């Protein structure tokens, strides 16, 4: 796969389609699996890791869907290319930063990724636009079943699928949705929502999962426990609660529009103006302004830009994407200038398309 060919594109999960896509950016399910006859990655030496990678690579690239897969040898990639894959949510930060034989198979549309030798031997991920957990589950279950026909996964009657970290044991499933909650953040109602989520064992994280910062009002909600409940029960746990958060966010947005329409419209228009005219802009500020603009589009206060364009900018303005776009290594200061230039250009283009 030629990574450079991906620079101007974005994954299908960013297209802003699917149920409730104004608030639910994407849905994601991942499964952790290990081969029964090998030690976990932390106890596998170079030779074993190589053996695991070769074996899993053959199996993964032999799947019925494999003609649409591209395999990348992550260990051979430059650090900027690994960062590029992290920004696109195709590999985890841990996978990018670790060492030794490892790889990833990515589907054409970037909705399926299979990481080999991450924390577990195999991490299968399905990512889709909008609130689409059922279709994520159908697809990931199908891939898991196909692999299960030829591979013996580490499994124990009592504890289910065995994983390197005891927090993933059992189903090995992480079900998550990425939500855009600007109104709840603005009114500080968000803490109430998060407290309610923690009480029912759901975790809240930033844009890039574990340990990452919540930027631009984007949050990932996911199941915390993996043992003692079926996959369907864990998926239903999220499906039951997400509509309430969506409703909450919409209600607060309506109130904001009703009570402070002028201030809100002003804030959104200023954010849009800054993105179109700034000469230098940090990635944090970009996220924050894009978040305002995204809400502005949903509230029909901005009518010459679409949600997919904003979703795409969230990814394309990140450091590795910018550096690959301009094809040069950039220091923070240069990057902030490049980001502003990129935003000015892209917004002028996209506004033209919308009209």
């Amino acid at each position, binding site marked *: 796969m030629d990574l450079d060919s991906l620079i101007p594109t974005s994954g299908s999960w960013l297209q802003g389609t699917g149920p409730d896509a104004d608030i639910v950016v994407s849905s994601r399910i991942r499964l952790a699996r*290990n081969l*029964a006859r*090998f*030690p*976990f990655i*932390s*106890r596998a030496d170079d030779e074993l890791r190589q053996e695991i990678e070769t074996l899993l690579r053959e199996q993964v690239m032999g799947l019925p869907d494999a003609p649409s897969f591209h395999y990348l040898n992550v260990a051979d990639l430059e650090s900027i290319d690994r960062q590029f894959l992290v920004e696109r949510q195709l590999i985890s930060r841990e996978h990018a930063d670790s060492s030794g034989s490892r790889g990833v198979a990515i589907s054409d549309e970037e909705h399926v990724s299979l990481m080999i030798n991450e*924390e577990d031997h195999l991490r299968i991920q399905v990512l889709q636009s909008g609130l689409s957990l059922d279709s994520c589950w159908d697809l990931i*279950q199908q891939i*898991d*079943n196909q692999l*299960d*026909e030829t591979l*013996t*996964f*580490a*499994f*124990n*009657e*009592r*504890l*289910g*699928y*065995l994983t*390197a*970290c*005891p*927090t*993933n*044991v*059992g*189903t090995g*499933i992480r079900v998550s949705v990425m939500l855009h909650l600007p109104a709840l953040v603005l009114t500080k109602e968000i803490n109430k929502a*998060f*407290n309610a989520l*923690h*009480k029912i*064992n759901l*975790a*809240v*994280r*930033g844009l890039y999962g*574990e*340990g*990452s*910062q*919540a930027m631009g009002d984007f949050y990932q909600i996911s199941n*915390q*426990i*993996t*043992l*003692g*409940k*079926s*996959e369907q029960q864990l998926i239903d746990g999220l499906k039951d609660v997400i509509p309430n958060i969506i409703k909450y966010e919409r209600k607060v947005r309506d109130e904001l529009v009703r009570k402070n329409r002028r201030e809100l419209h002003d804030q959104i228009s200023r954010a849009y103006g800054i993105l179109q005219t700034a000469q230098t802009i940090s990635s944090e500020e970009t996220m924050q302004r894009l978040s305002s603009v995204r809400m502005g589009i949903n509230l029909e206060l901005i009518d010459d830009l679409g949600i997919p364009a904003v979703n795409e900018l969230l990814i394309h303005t990140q450091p590795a994407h910018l550096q690959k776009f301009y094809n040069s290594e950039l220091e923070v200061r240069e990057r902030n200038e490049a980001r502003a230039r990129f935003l000015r250009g892209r917004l002028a283009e996209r506004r033209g398309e919308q009209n």
Partner: protein
Amino acid sequence: MKKCRRCSKPATLHITEMREGEVHELHLCETCYQEYLDYSETPEEPPTTDSAPPEIAIELTGDQTLEELDQTACPNCGISFREFRSQGRLGCPHDYTEFENELLPLLENIHGETQHCGKLPTRAADSSRRQYELIRLRKELQLAVAAEDYETAAQLRDTIVSLESDLGLNDNPTPD
């Protein structure tokens, strides 16, 4: 998954603070998060534990001291219990059997349960499939009773009894 920086529960809140231009990450469980909110005015010491997470707290069950337990190693992959406690990662699938007594309370703490009831690999034996079916049905029965749905509960009980007798699991064998 990261552990809470202040105790050993899983961290459910991941906080990034910007202080004087520096980014500080903090990973807390719900209880410690509440304390953190209450005292967030007082500056935190910069977190240094991300590379060396706090050790997993273990409830000792038998006569073994923690020192003795720490020396125990898995004959399969060689990881010592001490290494697991400091890294939070196991060495091989067999560790779950080797350290079962120590891991079960930990898993109970993390997940609130210690019995898998999700998907099975297709090669799992038919008998274990039915065992799982039983586990699942008993759970549904509990839920039905809790919801006072006695009709469903009665149906579930019948299914459970017939499955148990299929498996030769009747608790009250008739005397000879």
